[in-house]
């Protein structure tokens, strides 16, 4: 009996030791099976294979209305904002692709115009609420008439980006008008805060609008630098989380904070701020990288909140994996920031995670990530081609 027990004990110990050893060897090697050259995802010049495949899928969606409606329906069930943002990211991506490879311009311009015109038409017909989450109707906007900076900023940047690829006079006036309204609202508020939702202002949307102002300056010879610098000065003073030094995500029109720093916001904010105040944007990126960017066993990911701040899991964060704190929303947006600041090590680690955990599906040269959705894939596409638009904006 004693001998049998000893044998069982010995086998169990060996079993667990083998298990631990196998895990210790296997886990650090796992990423090697998914790690690909960075040029597969991002290239300084030209268009990477992944960008080509992702773009092929999106272009197919925009030429097949039934397919597009099915995709949009899935997203709108969760979040109507994604329908809108998917359009924005795709337009910005196609503009960058057109600037990278001018021969493709003629192919992208009709799609870009179709997206912009359809988006504006929907907004005019159904109002701003069609692209907002239902709680937007729970209370009235503080500033009347109701406008959402989320929509105005992104449409202005869509139009501006299109004009950067090739001038289109029909967009000049509507773009200028949207920016004029934004400027008016910023100047009327001590914090230069404009609402995206009723009494809810998002740093993300302010950063997009700032980038739109810079693009407008480049296109129309205006000078919004004082306005932009004033916003940066106010943000440095009032919108910085004291513990992390990162910009908060959302606040009320009187400056009362709503959400602290969030990955799904800050990665895009630093990207947009790059054309407004590069040193400030870089500083914010480095802080975000330290607080929210992680690389473990060769896999990169983003967390939604820094260690010092725990916010509620919401539609922006996506599913958050307990323990590690991996956030789909933050990880996706981290691609954009890592590309912007040429943080190749982090970008490669993020791409490794993407190929391991996002379930890529390549059919007929069209790539999509099953764990993502249309807006997620469009944001990824943007991360793989960004650069030329900002380059042209800052260095004419």
């Amino acid at each position: 009996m004693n001998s049998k027990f000893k044998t069982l004990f010995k086998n169990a110990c060996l079993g667990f030791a083998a298990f631990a050893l196998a895990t210790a060897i296997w886990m650090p090697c796992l990423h090697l099976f998914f790690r690909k050259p960075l040029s597969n995802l991002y290239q300084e010049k030209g268009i990477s294979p992944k960008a080509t495949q992702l773009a092929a899928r999106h272009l197919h969606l925009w030429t097949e209305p039934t397919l597009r409606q099915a995709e949009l329906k899935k997203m709108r069930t969760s979040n109507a904002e994604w329908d809108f943002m998917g359009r924005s990211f795709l337009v910005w991506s196609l503009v960058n692709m057109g600037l990278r490879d001018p021969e493709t311009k003629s192919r992208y311009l009709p799609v870009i115009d179709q997206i912009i015109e359809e988006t504006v038409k929907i907004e005019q017909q159904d109002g701003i609420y069609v692209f907002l989450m239902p709680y937007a109707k729970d209370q009235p906007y503080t500033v009347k008439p109701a406008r959402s900076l989320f929509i105005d900023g992104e449409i202005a940047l869509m139009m501006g980006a299109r004009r950067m690829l090739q001038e289109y006079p029909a967009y000049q006036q509507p773009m200028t008008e949207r920016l004029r309204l934004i400027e008016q609202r910023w100047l009327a508020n001590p914090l230069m805060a404009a609402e995206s939702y009723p009494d809810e202002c998002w740093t993300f949307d302010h950063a997009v609008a700032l980038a739109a102002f810079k693009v407008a300056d480049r296109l129309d010879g205006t000078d919004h630098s004082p306005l932009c610098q004033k916003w940066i000065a106010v943000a440095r003073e009032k919108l910085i989380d004291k513990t992390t030094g990162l910009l908060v995500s959302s606040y009320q029109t009187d400056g009362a904070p709503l959400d602290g720093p969030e990955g799904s916001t800050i990665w895009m904010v630093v990207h947009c701020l790059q054309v407004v105040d590069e040193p400030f944007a870089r500083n914010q990126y480095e802080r975000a990288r330290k607080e929210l960017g992680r690389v473990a066993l060769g896999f990169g990911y983003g967390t939604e909140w820094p260690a010092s701040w725990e916010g509620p899991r919401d539609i922006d964060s996506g599913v958050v994996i307990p323990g590690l704190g991996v956030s789909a929303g933050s990880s996706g947006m981290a691609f954009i920031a890592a590309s912007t600041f040429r943080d190749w090590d982090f970008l490669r680690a993020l791409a490794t995670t993407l190929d391991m955990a996002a379930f890529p599906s390549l059919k007929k040269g069209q790539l999509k990530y099953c764990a993502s959705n249309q807006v997620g894939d469009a944001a990824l596409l943007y991360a793989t081609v960004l650069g030329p638009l900002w380059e042209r904006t800052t260095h004419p």
Partner: protein
Amino acid sequence: MKRFFRFFRELWKAPAFSPTAFVIRAIIITVFFSISELLGLREYTTFLSGTSANVNLSWQTASLLGLIHLFLYVASRAHRCLEPLERLKHSAANSPSSSGATCL
């Protein structure tokens, strides 16, 4: 046929930590994972981004299907690591007094 069933029974009865048992589990996981792929459950992993793959199903059902695929995927990757080392362990433990596991 009889020989096949005997062989299958021997495989099935292999000790839990033996190489045979790991191979069997690897086969089972591969079969289930393949079925999951064929049924298109990969699409349901979109729940990770907060989206429902099928608007005709409830969010919970769609997420559950995605979760099943996710677990099978992780299992299929994780299980691969155990097999060679378990084989080593088994060689070390394969003394006359220990159980006679069948090596493939």
